[in-house]
């Protein structure tokens, strides 16, 4: 039995950790994360040069990683750095979907690595419906053999800069059916696409997208028509593993920040960490964070196991949702007024940690899903 990461992955993690500590300042990150673009192109390019994207992508598509363990390792490091650049959206969601398509689609993955292309998955349609198969956007056939896509996609992160949208749509079945789902890879400048863009609480911008009779050729469809649910489902499961790992990195960083604060902040003449009321809250957090880590390890172990994957993923997302919110709230409380300020790092980590529960299904959704499996 051995839970240690392989030496290669440990080196990768340590390298990234060091890079973020030295080169990715949180104050610069915050300026970029809350700018009109929502991230820093300079930081994105610097990190691309570091090979982060390659580590998320299979060797057959010119990457050098892409396994569950690679993804988990990298995203824990990204979490520590509170990286806002679109690694999840491009390196995981879009790359996973495109890798199941034609040679043309696969070539887009290679273009991602060359920084020539920024495809974004546009899937979610309502704010509170987390079921992966929920799609109402319509795909209809036109007289000339091409297709038309019409519908609304909501809360699509980093959409404004996208070069392509990977749009889930259906030509048959009811809104929740796994049958009938297709994915259209549509250049972002095509006619009929409208963007409404918003700032976010945790950094990066999101958009609601409206597609009105957008023309799509049959070559632009990824996978067989009406049979693409499993592609988007697996991409989202990978995304869940990634953001659960990101949450772990955030929690570890919050733990460090809070411990440092408890040892330096003095009241009544002693560091506040000397008070048992504080010690027990902090010890409880440590216990919970260890459980959160175990849930992610469990999901990683079973990630390639078709029968266990969804159940362990839901258990992990539930654990991360529940524990993440606790860690965020408790760490702010233990920091007192300092935890409430924009200037101090903690609040920014806490915001991202809480909002991770709103992505790909919250703790309640995944608990119900766990029960149903």
């Amino acid at each position, binding site marked *: *039995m051995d839970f240690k990461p392989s030496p290669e992955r440990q080196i990768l993690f340590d390298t990234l950790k060091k890079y973020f500590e030295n080169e990715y300042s949180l104050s610069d990150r915050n300026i970029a994360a809350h700018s009109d673009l929502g991230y820093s192109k300079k930081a994105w390019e610097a990190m691309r040069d570091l090979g982060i994207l390659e580590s998320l992508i299979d060797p057959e598509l010119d990457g050098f990683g892409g396994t569950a363990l690679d993804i988990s390792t990298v995203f824990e490091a990204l979490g520590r750095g509170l990286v806002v650049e679109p690694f999840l959206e491009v390196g995981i969601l879009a790359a996973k979907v495109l890798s199941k398509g034609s040679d043309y689609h696969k070539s887009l993955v290679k273009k991602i690595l060359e920084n020539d292309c920024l495809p974004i998955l546009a899937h979610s349609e309502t704010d509170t419906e987390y079921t992966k198969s929920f799609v109402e956007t319509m795909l209809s056939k036109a007289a000339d053999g091409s297709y038309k896509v019409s519908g609304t996609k909501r809360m699509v992160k980093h959409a404004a800069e996208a070069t392509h949208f990977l749009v889930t749509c259906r030509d048959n079945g009811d809104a929740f059916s796994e049958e009938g789902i297709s994915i259209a890879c549509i250049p972002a400048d095509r006619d009929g696409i409208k963007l409404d863009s918003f700032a976010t609480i945790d950094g990066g911008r999101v958009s609601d997208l409206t597609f009105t009779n957008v023309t799509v050729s049959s070559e632009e469809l990824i996978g067989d028509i009406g049979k693409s649910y499993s592609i988007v489902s697996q991409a989202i499961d990978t995304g869940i593993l990634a953001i659960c790992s990101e949450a772990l990195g955030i929690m570890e960083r919050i733990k460090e920040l809070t411990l440092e604060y408890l*040892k330096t902040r003095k009241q009544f003449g002693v560091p506040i960490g000397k008070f048992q009321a504080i010690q027990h809250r902090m*010890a*409880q957090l440590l*216990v919970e964070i260890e*459980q959160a880590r*175990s849930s992610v*390890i469990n999901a990683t172990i079973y990630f390639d196991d078709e029968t266990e994957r969804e159940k362990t993923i839901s258990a992990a997302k539930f*654990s991360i949702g529940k524990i993440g919110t606790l860690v965020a709230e408790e760490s702010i409380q233990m920091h007192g007024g300092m935890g409430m300020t924009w200037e101090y790092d903690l609040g920014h980590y806490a915001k991202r940690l809480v909002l991770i529960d709103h992505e790909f299904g919250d703790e309640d959704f995944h608990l119900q899903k766990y029960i149903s499996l």
Partner: protein
Amino acid sequence: MDLDFTKEQKNFQNEVRSFLHETLEPQVVEKVKNGIPITKEDSERWHEKLNEKGWLAGTWPKQYGGQDWDVVEKFIFEEECGSAGAPRIVPFGVGMLAPVLMKFGSQEQKDYWLPRMLTNEDWWCQGYSEPGSGSDLASLKTSAVREGDYYIVNGQKTWTTFAQHANMIFCLVRTSNEGKPQEGISFILIDMNSPGIEVRPIITLDGSHEVNEIFFSDVKVPANNLVGEENKGWTYAKYLLTHERTGNANVAVSKRKIQKLKKLADDAKKNEKPLSHDPMFASRLAQIEIDLQNLEITNLRTLASVEGGEAPGAESSIIKILGSEIEQDIDNLTRKSLGKRAFVNEPDALSAGYNGSEVLPKAAAYASGKYFNHRKKSIYAGSNEIQKNIISKLMLNL
């Protein structure tokens, strides 16, 4: 990352499994699986069979009749016993005192006491807590004063598990009032049949008799029953506590209890449907299952680090907190799942000689009793608050 057992470890697992299958007595297993206390005789018969196989003290070195099990073999053995519904090995002798004797005892003490633990000749109990010294154990007052070849012991111990069965007790006693409280404590072995010892039962809120208080009035103890050096007992006690806490996640037991609970919930009805389909119940159960699944990995991670050569530290405090709370959660939900039947308290319903009305489901015989009895789990072996103190000190450096 590699989570598989080695081939040898798998073989050992199979060997344990088939041994348990052949050897366990069905009526004892039924008691264990329904959470009903077993008798002293049940325990002794089980110890005897384990000893014949050489597994009563598997972690002991071979020279003392053990198997030199490492942490993983110990884990495999305990997990298999847990899922099979085997009685728990009474830990005070083989699990707690023995490591202390092996490390700090004289050759004479090792040669005399260790073999007797394996043959049921001695039933040990643990004399630590006192009325005024619980979490603050070092404040203990029971005194031992050297007079010639004897110590004269006066004082009181409490919460002593199975003192009613025991013929021997290992005690922490005060031999000095100089310096820090920890520096005047000694570790001594006392014959429970000595004149001046009185054992009084403490009946716990569920009506059961597990713990006792013990009064010592001018009890004469041979001086060669002192373990190690005088006034070094605190060191030995701490050493013992790390053994007490290591690897006590009880994951297999909790898993078995969850399976039992699921069966109860399938058979019970609410709104004309099985209770297991009730959303509130299902949600409570699923949360416990996920917590337990996470604990299983947390426990294995601790085990792997010990196997990899790291010393078990405050990680065992994490395991103790989680293991106790999860087991309490299961007992809580089991009680709830029985509805009105949870009023019943017939802990003898599965014992030979019981002639009352049959209790159905059988688990109802002692479910509420068990729930109340198991409140002890977050209190004993260092309360969960003490565990958090340990985590703050050793892991968080606060």
